């Protein structure tokens, strides 16, 4: 159990309804001091709404929000000292960069000398010193982003909330800006809550990730942990690219060993897993296979695991890798291979599955069994 003193933001049963539609349905969360937490989920999953409630831009229908254990649920945004960076940056287009950065300090009636000092400090940090006199509307995208960041930082907020700040960037630039963000976070050492629908972004940026779907939390954990141990089918399908393959299988016992079975596929299980599956009420399972974990079978099959034969349906090269669609009966199975392994459409291949790299889910509840 996390120590409550260490959490800077605490959400308690947070709910939000818009005209009868539940956007967020009961969220409990502790954000740790100094961490980079990502809210990850498809659009409409309630992640932005949650962020806006923390900033006070929306009022929760029910539940409480605590900042450093002080209840702020009904406090207006002006009195929260929670920084919010908007998706479109929401700069004051009619002002110079300096005035943008100084805005928060001016409305707090900070002394002019102090404003000047603070503005130059954050401007230096985010490499804006050269453009302080430029009007915000005239900046390029990456400078706008830095102004937005600097403006939020100038007032020294307790927490920084970021709403998909990289959405406006084209792919190449986006990766670069991601690196920048990561660097800033190291430099600033400030608590950040970051909303994104891009799993890659969340994986690379977050210390922890909260995966959300339909207003609910699906899983909370470190990126690698979530990737390796997805709690359910949704998380498993959402994290990782190309997405995990899912096959419906039946569990069967054959002599000593356990078997997973479907048309064209027989998978021999190790003993411990067999034992675990036997204790389940249902034998109807979903087998999850990461495309990266499949390999072309060499001669001789493994004792555990299995091999299936399939036909190449499509090859999508990706420079150093290739994504291959294989046809197994009616199902398409994706597999990632190094680019130097030439495969042609309609080739028949044998694919090996390692039993210790499979995921298994309960077909009815979707929960992970392993």
């Amino acid at each position: 159990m996390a120590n409550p003193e260490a959490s800077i933001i605490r959400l308690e049963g947070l709910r939000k309804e818009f005209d009868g539609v539940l956007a967020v349905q009961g969220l409990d969360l502790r954000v740790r001091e100094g961490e980079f937490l990502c809210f990850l989920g498809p659009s409409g999953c309630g992640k932005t709404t949650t962020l806006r409630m923390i900033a006070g831009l929306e009022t929760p229908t029910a539940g409480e929000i605590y900042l450093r254990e002080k209840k702020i649920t009904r406090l207006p945004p002006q009195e929260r000292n929670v920084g919010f960076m908007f998706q479109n940056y929401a700069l004051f287009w009619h002002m110079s960069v300096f005035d943008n950065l100084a805005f928060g300090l001016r409305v707090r009636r900070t002394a002019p000398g102090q404003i000047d000092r603070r503005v130059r400090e954050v401007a230096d940090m985010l490499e804006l010193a050269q453009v302080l006199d430029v009007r915000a509307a005239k900046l390029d995208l990456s400078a706008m982003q830095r102004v937005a960041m600097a403006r939020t930082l100038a007032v020294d907020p307790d927490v920084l909330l970021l709403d998909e700040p990289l959405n406006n960037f084209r792919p190449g630039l986006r990766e670069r800006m991601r690196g920048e963000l990561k660097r800033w976070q190291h430099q600033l050492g400030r608590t950040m809550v970051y909303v994104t629908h891009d799993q890659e972004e969340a994986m690379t940026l977050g210390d922890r990730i909260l995966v959300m779907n339909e207003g609910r939390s699906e899983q909370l954990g470190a990126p690698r942990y979530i990737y390796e141990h997805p709690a359910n089918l949704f998380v498993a399908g959402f994290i990782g690219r190309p997405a995990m393959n899912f096959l419906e299988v039946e569990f069967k016992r054959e002599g000593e060993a356990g078997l997973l079975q479907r048309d064209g596929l027989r998978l021999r299980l190790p003993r411990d897993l067999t034992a675990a599956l036997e204790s389940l009420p249902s034998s109807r399972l979903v087998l999850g296979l990461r495309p990266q974990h499949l390999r072309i079978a060499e001669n001789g099959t493994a004792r555990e695991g299995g091999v299936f034969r399939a036909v190449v349906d499509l090859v999508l090269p990706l420079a150093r890798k290739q994504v291959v669609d294989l046809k197994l009966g009616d199902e398409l199975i994706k597999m990632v291979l190094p680019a130097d392994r030439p495969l042609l459409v309609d080739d028949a291949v044998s694919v090996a599955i390692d039993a210790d790299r499979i995921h298994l889910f309960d077909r009815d509840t979707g929960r992970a069994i392993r």
Partner: protein
Amino acid sequence: MESRRLREFTDAVLRWLAGIIVCAIFLLPLIWVLSISFKPPEEWIAYPPRLIPEKITTSNYVVLFQPGNPVGGVGAMVSAAEPVTRAFINSIIVVPIATAASLVIGFLAAYATTRFQAGGKSLPLFVLTTRMFPPVAFAVPLLVYFRALGLIDTQLALILMYTGFTIAFSLWMTRGFIEGVPKSIEEAAILDGASRWRVLFTITLPLVKGGLAATGLFVFILNWTEFLLAQIFTSRQAITIPVQVSHYVGAVGRFYGPMAALGVVASIPVVVAGYIIQRHLVTGFTFGLVRE
């Protein structure tokens, strides 16, 4: 903690009260006109004035269309003014024709200026000058000119002027709507094999027809309410309703009842039109001047 909710509540109540007061202020003048239009002559300037007539009568309306009909003994004097019927017929002919012409010409020009910069970049601004100057400044030369063409006191003169002086609105309002249609849609249609004309009529026009309707109603209002030009360029034959209203005020003394009745009648078409376009007005009036 609950102060925020309380504040929001009082806020709403204050807005609501302000709304009622504003309503009253904006409604009162017209209600007074309505009230007088249903009053018999002895109540017109009765003191103290009453909002609700003691004796409601429709004779003020009747007398408009049957000048011979006596209204408490003053019917004969009212009939000294021109019969309202002619003004009505004129307005009903002139205004819709001018409106339609303005809309068609304006739409075509708006399309050409937004899509191909036809006539140069400054043409749309130039057209605006027709609205900038007092119409009376144009009336001086136009009178001379129309007299030479034999157009004085004709419906055609009004139609020409009303079309011309509302073209700026037709052009600018439809430009906004046309700009809302992505150019790529038209290009896609061309690559599908459609000619320019076909693109204009099967793609662009259907996509802006709501906007055209709103523009049309707006132009209709402008034309229906126009007074100065009609006053100058008509005398008997081509007289329009606003001119007729002014005659009641100016010429025949204090016949407040029929005067008010005519005011009400003159206002009905435009208030109806205004109500219909209200929704479009709010979206159509930002002139694309606000960022994002």
